[in-house]
């Protein structure tokens, strides 16, 4: 096992990228990451590409070879990773394993999704495949529906309120307002969230992350040679992942994502840190209730306590714990395959001190948390400055 560092990151702006297809998005993020890493295309040895449903969204499969092709990585091995909305985080973990094992030195991890070429209904159906197709999607149960079932039970057991959920969206839009890559650079209020269209009770339109286009790329290297490329390599000090039943109703609990807590416990052990040591975290807020559950399942708050803490401002930028400084999935956008890789890019910027207006002061330890489906996959990484 070798130590692994991120030596370069690149993003596209997230949003409705009408003039960009898969190739343009891959190229834009990939070039930015190679430039940032000071790595030439011919130095790259392996590529892992996270994409969830490109076949459904644009009719294109085989997207990892396509990404290697488009970035001029001639003839290198390239593997697509599909783990629903955790495709990006899962691809990062595979890249980490490849470098850590000693099999490859310079590895590129990309994530991309082009979602806005189809109608909202077609997109909802494609995303529905992240759950149990036969017993959830077949019955017309959408993803907002699945998270609504969790939210309703969370409200029942812990007294979590719709206003607390709304406060997650308000905070994440506030952060997105300061992020030039974000889809929504617009502040919103609790009353605007509460007054937005009901999608699946109690989840409203402004509790939901959007449909987005975008790509994210990071470049990995062994820590021992990382400084050859970059003065501030960011070390990956933990890489953990867990799975659970695909079908929501079959889980042990509707109010916790068990895969998250299992992955988090493993990650804290690997990194030899505790939840209280984390300075900045990107969590998977596909819906506002998901951020509340993530804060509990990652060990930052006791079960049932996160909603009030978020409403009280404890997780705003530069308060007790800065959460989703990028704007999260809610404010920055959620091109599903790209999200897990974008989270890593945001933490790298934070730990380097390059996050501009949204910089967390003195950030030294960061975390990312990426969930697939309604919780059948969770991936947790922890990062530290290597200097």
């Amino acid at each position, binding site marked *: 096992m070798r130590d692994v560092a991120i030596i370069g990151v690149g993003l596209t702006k997230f949003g409705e990228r009408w003039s960009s297809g898969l190739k343009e998005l891959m190229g834009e993020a990939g070039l930015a990451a190679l430039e940032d890493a000071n790595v030439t295309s011919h130095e790259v040895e392996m590529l892992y590409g996270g994409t969830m449903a490109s076949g459904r969204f644009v009719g294109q499969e085989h997207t990892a070879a396509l990404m290697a092709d488009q970035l001029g990585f001639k003839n290198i091995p390239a593997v697509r990773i599909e783990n629903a909305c955790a495709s990006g985080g899962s691809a990062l973990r595979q890249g980490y394993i490849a470098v850590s094992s000693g099999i490859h030195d310079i590895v590129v991890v990309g994530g991309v999704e082009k979602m806005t070429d189809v109608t909202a209904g077609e997109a*909802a159906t494609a995303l529905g495949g992240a759950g149990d197709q036969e017993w*959830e999607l077949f*019955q*017309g149960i959408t993803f907002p529906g699945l998270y*609504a079932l969790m939210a*309703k039970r969370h409200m029942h057991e812990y007294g979590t309120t719709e206003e607390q959920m709304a406060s997650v969206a308000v905070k994440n839009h506030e952060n997105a307002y300061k992020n030039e890559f974000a889809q929504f650079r617009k502040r919103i209020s609790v009353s605007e969230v509460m007054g937005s269209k009901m*999608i*699946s009770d109690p989840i409203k339109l402004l509790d939901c992350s959007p449909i987005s286009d975008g790509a994210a790329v990071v470049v990995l290297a062994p820590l021992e040679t990382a400084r050859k490329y970059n003065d501030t390599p960011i070390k990956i000090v933990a890489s953990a992942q867990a799975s659970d039943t695909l079908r*929501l109703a079959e889980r042990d609990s*509707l109010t916790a994502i068990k895969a998250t807590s299992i992955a988090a416990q493993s990650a804290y052990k690997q990194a030899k840190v505790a939840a209280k040591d984390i300075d900045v975290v990107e969590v998977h807020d596909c819906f506002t209730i998901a951020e509340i559950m993530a804060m509990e399942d990652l060990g930052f708050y006791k079960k049932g306590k996160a909603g009030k803490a978020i409403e009280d401002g404890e997780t705003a930028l530069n308060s007790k714990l800065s959460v989703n400084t990028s704007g999260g999935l809610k404010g920055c956008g959620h091109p599903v395959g790209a999200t897990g890789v974008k989270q890593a890019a945001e933490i790298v910027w934070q730990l380097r001190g390059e996050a501009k207006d949204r910089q967390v002061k003195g950030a030294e330890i960061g975390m990312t948390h990426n969930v697939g489906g309604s919780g059948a996959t969770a991936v947790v990484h922890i990062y530290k400055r290597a200097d």
Partner: protein
Amino acid sequence: MERSSASLWRKIRPRYNLVGNECKNCNTGYFPPRVVCRNCGRKSKMAEKQFSGNGTVYSFTVIRTPPDTFKDEAPYTIGVIKLDEGPMVEGHVIDTGAKLRIGAKVKMAFRKMYVEDDEGLIHYHFKFEPL
């Protein structure tokens, strides 16, 4: 979404009759049925089990923005139902009136789910109705 009719018909017994299974090794019931017991893995001894259709609402929501196949059905109520025999299952809850609540008793009902656009093929399914 385009589905072959085989993918629908092969699940007819659980969908129409609430036939699940249980592991004779650990006595855990499963609905929908599983090939492998979650507790026992390769030591599973699965046998068919008829579920009563009685259960309790564990959580619920009203879906107002449906996938395309359900565009003529929305809004509709989806519940997570804890069956009396143990397992939890998602399903439509019908005739809910104004106030469905967590903890309400329900019973399985056999109902039309949706009609395919082109050929008018009707899909039936279990749903749940309050007692």
